[in-house]
């Protein structure tokens, strides 16, 4: 359908101010956090109510027009990249918290609610919303649901999926279904579990019931320095193997520390190759006892220096340093690619050695900062896109790292999703029969394959690559990656 036909037809079902198709609007929506891809949609619909979303999706289904649901567009895998023949349904205006049920510790939100807004709304009652992607100041809960997003604290608290209790899901054929009962368990297959993390390919999450948790009373946050990355990796295994389940265990390498120091003045142990961040949280009683065990484990693990956050301020500085790494590295290098592969925990040391060797071989600097507790790597491949061939070399290195994760029995993505970027690697993890079964499942909800057409599955058409770089939000210092 031509742009004009689409706009005319949409105007017959929606008020005119719900539609945007000016050149500047189309340009503003052409990329998400993975700026290497840019595609302009035919039009952008900005619904003001759930009912308008239903109308729009039913229209898309009738007309066979592809749509991409969009929250804040911070996807790092091209998930919210528009479709050239389709429309974007921007959900930011659906940003009401519909219900806060304090006694039962849950909230019902519209998909456009910003992750951190929910936490600030319930903080007065000693509650919080646990999933904490480092984009949480800007990303939406709808986007988090689509990608089953994680954060530094998902080691203990799990991903988005572990915190969504029920949803009103608008399937791509326009049918509105309830999934989940809101209590945590259900009868019959876990359809809610299937919907969360489905990358917008099955439909739009229109109303999301999430769990709220009692805020931990106490935190114990430490930085431990090591002479080698391998030693830091071994310390992770020792801590986890002891029976302690810290809220977070993160590793930063020397390059990441340098970047964080330059950017936010974070202080790290001297002359170390790697630093481990471990955080315990919970009731005062538990944390007080667990910290003794942790201290003992760290001193046995060969840490050259251990810095304990003395107060909330110092804790905040440690996290600020950690969360700033990617944007900080972004200031050191004009362009970068961030990967999100997962390796079995026991292969962490080996994977890091291989990445280091590959980086040397390719002559490309790679900073490593990762969710060590669950083997989720975030190698940051630095290059200068203005120099001929550098983007391609960086891409090749990124591809090798993804392949390495597959070879080691891991996954191509831990939390950023497959999206546009990693589609060609999906067959490395799943057989043709498995992918076919996933495709049939998709078609059951979206017979015309209009929801996020071209994403996740390997055989869809891909737009050409452009330039990597900082997300506009990062340039403004609003968010950082991890």
């Amino acid at each position: 359908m031509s742009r004009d036909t689409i706009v005319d037809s949409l105007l017959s079902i929606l008020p005119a101010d719900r539609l945007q198709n000016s050149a500047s609007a189309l340009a503003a929506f052409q990329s998400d956090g993975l700026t290497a891809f840019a595609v302009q949609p035919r039009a952008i619909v900005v619904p003001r109510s759930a009912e308008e979303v239903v109308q729009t999706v039913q229209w898309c289904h009738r007309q066979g027009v592809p749509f991409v649901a969009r929250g804040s567009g911070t996807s790092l895998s091209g998930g919210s990249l528009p479709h050239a023949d389709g429309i974007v349904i921007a959900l930011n205006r659906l940003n009401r918290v519909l219900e806060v049920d304090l006694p039962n510790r849950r909230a019902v939100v519209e998909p456009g609610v910003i992750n951190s807004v929910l936490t600030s709304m319930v903080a007065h009652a000693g509650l919080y919303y646990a999933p904490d992607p480092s984009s949480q100041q800007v990303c939406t809960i709808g986007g988090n649901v689509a990608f089953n997003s994680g954060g530094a604290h998902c080691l203990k608290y799990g991903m988005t999926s572990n915190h969504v209790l029920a949803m009103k899901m608008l399937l791509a054929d326009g049918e509105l279904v309830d999934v989940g009962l809101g209590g945590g368990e259900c009868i019959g297959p876990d359809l809610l579990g299937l919907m969360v993390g489905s990358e917008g390919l099955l439909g739009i999450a229109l109303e999301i019931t999430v769990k709220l948790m009692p805020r931990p009373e106490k935190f114990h946050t430490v930085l431990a320095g090591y002479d080698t990355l391998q030693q830091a990796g071994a310390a992770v295994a020792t801590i986890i193997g002891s029976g302690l389940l810290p809220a977070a265990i993160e590793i930063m390498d020397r390059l990441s520390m340098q970047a964080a120091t330059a950017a936010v003045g974070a202080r790290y142990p001297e002359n170390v190759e790697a630093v481990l961040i471990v955080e315990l949280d919970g009731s005062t009683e538990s944390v007080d006892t667990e910290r003794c065990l942790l201290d003992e484990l760290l001193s046995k693990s060969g840490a050259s220096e251990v810095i304990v956050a003395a107060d909330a301020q110092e804790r905040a500085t440690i996290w600020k340093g950690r969360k700033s790494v990617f944007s900080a590295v972004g200031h050191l290098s004009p362009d970068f690619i961030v990967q999100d592969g997962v390796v079995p925990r026991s292969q962490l040391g080996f994977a890091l050695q291989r990445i280091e060797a590959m980086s040397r071989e390719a002559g490309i600097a790679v900073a490593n900062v990762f969710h060590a507790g669950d083997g989720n790597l975030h190698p940051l491949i630095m290059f200068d896109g203005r120099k001929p061939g550098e983007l391609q070399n960086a891409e090749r290195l990124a591809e090798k790292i993804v392949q390495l994760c597959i070879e080691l029995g891991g996954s191509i993505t831990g939390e950023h999703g497959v999206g546009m970027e990693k589609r060609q690697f999906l067959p490395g993890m799943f057989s043709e029969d498995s992918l076919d079964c996933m495709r049939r499942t998709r078609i059951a909800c979206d017979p015309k394959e209009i929801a996020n057409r071209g994403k996740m599955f390997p055989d869809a058409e891909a737009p050409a690559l452009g330039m990597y770089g900082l997300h506009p939000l990062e340039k403004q210092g609003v968010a950082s990656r991890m």
Partner: protein
Amino acid sequence: MIDDWCQAVLQQDKVLPTGGGTKPALRAAEGVSTVQLDTRSLSGVLAYDPSEFLITAASGTPLSELQAVLGEHQQYLPFDPLFVNEQSTLGGTVASGLSGPRSLLYGTLRDFVMEVEFIDGLGKLVRGGGKVVKNAAGFDFPKLMVGSYGRLGILTEVTLKVLPVPIATRTLFQSCASFSQAIAAAQTLLAQPLPIAAVEIGPDFGLRVEFAGLQASMDKVQHRVQELLSGELERRDAQPLWSEELQVSGDELLVRIAFPPGKSLELAEGLAGLDGSRLVSLAPAGGVAWVKADGLQSLGDMELVLQGLGASAVVVRGHVTELTLLGKTGWVGLASRIQLAIDPHGKFLPFELSAQRNAVNG
């Protein structure tokens, strides 16, 4: 063996995977001729590296075997599986979607199924998830298989996330005067960031609380619980409220209820008002309860209570002629759509409601 099952799916009209038979009502299909595939012939641990916190086993592996292997390394299945002593299998456990009361500490079954391999309705071997503790690639088939009741595929292999056994646990019991008092006490505890492993309420308003952590913190946490709950607390062994209680005899039926948050009291009181049904245990935090009914004839009254609360239920044990769903069954429509995709020729039993349910509804 797997090849034989793939062939069976291709050649037979209807196939029904079976495990240890501990939840017979989920596979009841009287009057439908099915070829039963006994998954117990596919058994054994396939991979276990304690440092990865992952264990992979064939679907027919008895959970008791899995627990024994994990126990040697002080690890366990945190979702608190049921019917382990009765030889429940791994596949049957996943397909029935049931977790025990101790799942409050780290999560229910759905949070621990990392990878599944199953035969779909086209007789093809399908895999979803991965052998890592964190993974966002592809649709979450591992979760979809939780509670699939043998109707979305024949599970052949499952990888579970496991965790170290809590170093210490402690169980406290409080006798309450009413459901409302017991539920209010439970709410008070759940609003605190305490390491609570289980909170259950029994038919006589008894409140059982279990918490977990390091040995040295147990007394302190107990002290804190004592302060929060006025009234006497008794220390008990770490047993669930029921142990023999999930057995049925004669016409008795064991029903699993899942209910929306905030409905604990109404459910407990609603059930207490019924003649033919008895509460066994109610877990307010997870929104689940076990109830026993005297027989099919008692389900009609229970149905009314469940409908009124927006709760869903399924009969797990006892004699029924087919899958017996109660209360809110809106999920069946979407489940059937997904089933049609995975199993286009209808080789597995349907989820759909049938004659028996209509009889229950009168």
